[in-house]
């Protein structure tokens, strides 16, 4: 499944989607998989939105997570991503650019790709639109398919889960298949 092929060592994976589409849960899934294998991960949080409590509940080993909070400074977030992409030893470097992604030139994007390739890190960029462009080896779009509510009657008691559709937008060296895979996130 596409979910199992998101982390690519030495390459950039881009996850794009609107709010409440499941893109953050997908990112957390990647962090969980990397930390469960014993790797160190870094998360550059442009808008200071990362929730350690739900990440820990999702199985992310927070002791192996380096959290860099940029307090809304997007250019600093890009610089931090560049610094961490050049540091060998991180299994995943994730850049969450939020809903107002910064502009990234083509040259800067390919420099980032080269840095990831040299250090062997899997760089994951998450945002509301594509910013890495052709430098990404894999681009995936998330789309919310449906919600599940639990409880009797017309007034649900709690949110049970959310179904996210994953669509392959771009894969380096292969045409985009447009195939939709569906994954459930539970509450």
């Amino acid at each position, binding site marked *: 499944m596409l979910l199992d092929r998101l982390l690519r060592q030495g390459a950039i994976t881009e996850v794009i989607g609107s709010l409440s589409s499941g893109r953050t849960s997908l990112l957390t899934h990647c962090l969980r998989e990397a930390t469960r294998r014993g790797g160190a991960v870094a998360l550059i949080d442009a808008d200071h939105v990362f929730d350690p409590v739900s990440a820990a509940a999702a199985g992310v080993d927070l002791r192996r997570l380096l959290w860099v909070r940029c307090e809304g400074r997007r250019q600093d977030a890009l610089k*931090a991503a560049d*610094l961490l992409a050049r540091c*060998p030893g991180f299994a995943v470097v994730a850049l969450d650019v939020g809903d107002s992604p910064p502009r990234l030139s083509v040259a800067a994007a390919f420099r980032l790709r080269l840095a990831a390739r040299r250090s062997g890190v899997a760089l994951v960029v998450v945002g509301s639109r594509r910013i890495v462009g052709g430098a990404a080896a894999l681009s995936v779009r998330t789309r919310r398919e449906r919600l599940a*509510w639990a409880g009797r009657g017309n007034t649900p008691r709690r949110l049970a889960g959310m179904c996210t559709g994953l669509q392959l937008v771009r894969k380096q060296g292969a045409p985009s298949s447009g195939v939709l895979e569906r*994954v459930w996130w539970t509450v």
Partner: protein
Amino acid sequence: MVDGVSRLACVLVEGFAAAALERCEPALRERPLAAVLGAPPATRVVEANARGRAEGIRPGLSDAEAVVRCPTLVRRPVSAEAEAAAHHALLDACLAVSPRIEDVAPGCVHVDLAGLTRLFGDDETLARRLRRQARVVGLEARVGIAATRAAAGVAARVGPGLHVIAPGGERAALAAVPLAALEWPEGVSATFRRWGLATLGDLAALPRDGVGARLGKSGLAAHDLACGIDRGPFRPWSQPPSWEEAQGLDWEIVTLPALMPVLERILERLCARLAAAHMAVDALDLRLALASGGHQARTMALAAPLTEAAPLVALLALELERQPPEAAITGVSVSARVLPRRAALAQLWHPPPPAPRDLAAVLARLALLVGGANVGAPIVLDSHRPDAYSLAPFDPTEPNGLADSTDEPATGTAATEQDERIAGPLVLRRLRPPRPVTVETHEGRPAWLHGLSNDRAEVVTCAGPWRASGQWWDIDPWARDEWDIALADGTLWRLAHDRITKSWHLDALYD
């Protein structure tokens, strides 16, 4: 001990004041150097290095005489800080060979070699090892080994650079040593000449009581030395609680690029000492003496213990860039808070973490970029208060039980279709601070929301309330009702109603 006989070494650095200056400026070893004391015109030579001694520079010469004897002589004022640091370095070097050493005098250390033969080899090997360790910390030492400290001290001072006296041969080896080759207290050497004594053997042949009656305590000490006898106990020296290297400057330094070579030399000396003692740097305390007469001190904690000088120099440079000195610098001292070095065991099935020096450098750069308070590993606090967490220093080498766990996180229940898969929990994107909103309710449930980007948002579905509260016994109690709401624009929020302030706010977004 060898066959029940104790073996002791004396490690001696000749011309210690000059050797301490050479340690700070290694280029001076290639030139005749004199350590001088006093203000002109009363400047006098205290010590000279080997090249200086070869040119006839002796302690006590005036500055003018010294320059006449050796026009190319380099003179440097005696530095108490450099001597203290050099002596500590010598002690550390000897500790790397034996855990039992005695601090005799600046530049002189006694080493107990008991039990080391099985570890390192014979006396010759031990002597070479001691000299090698001294070279590692920047000092050229002479080593003498004998059954007593007195005999070992004489062996170190006379003869070849490595001098081993065989067990039982102390008396015979010392007998031929000329009295003029050793330093004696004032008046004692004149008395020896008057008595016609030429060698230590001549002095040892005299009755001890008679020498003591005529020369007092110094005579008794001289007689014991001539016989190779130790009267006093061995006083083991213990590790000092701090590690410090310092350097005074002959001129003021105004710019950071000019300060970097000084810091580099200081940290190289410090790291060499720490390496000899199998220690790593956990934090650095930098103290700058300023031309204004004051001092500027700062502490730099490291993300991971380091043992190499180059990354420490880079980190100090970043720290000084962040907070430059307030005035010109006239002196620098760096002290290290240390930890024992421990071997990091790589785990077979886990990828290696970032190397400590790479990690320390990147963390320092990130701290400079976004602020030190915004970089770290999150820790969830033991509290029911929402968004309760703190940041701790990031250390991926901490032993981890979770990574080895095969337990899957709780995924709850949700109706899935055949081609769907439960991937994991749904996480939140927090709003910091929470966004205040106005809520219109219908039958006690949120119906419309005001305060988002669009003027009025319809709540399509809402689930709740889930009541939570805490710290009711404290000065900062909290109590709230939480709702999960889906808006018409497709977003999914966690809405909270504060029961104490009666206000509504959006806490987080499900994504």
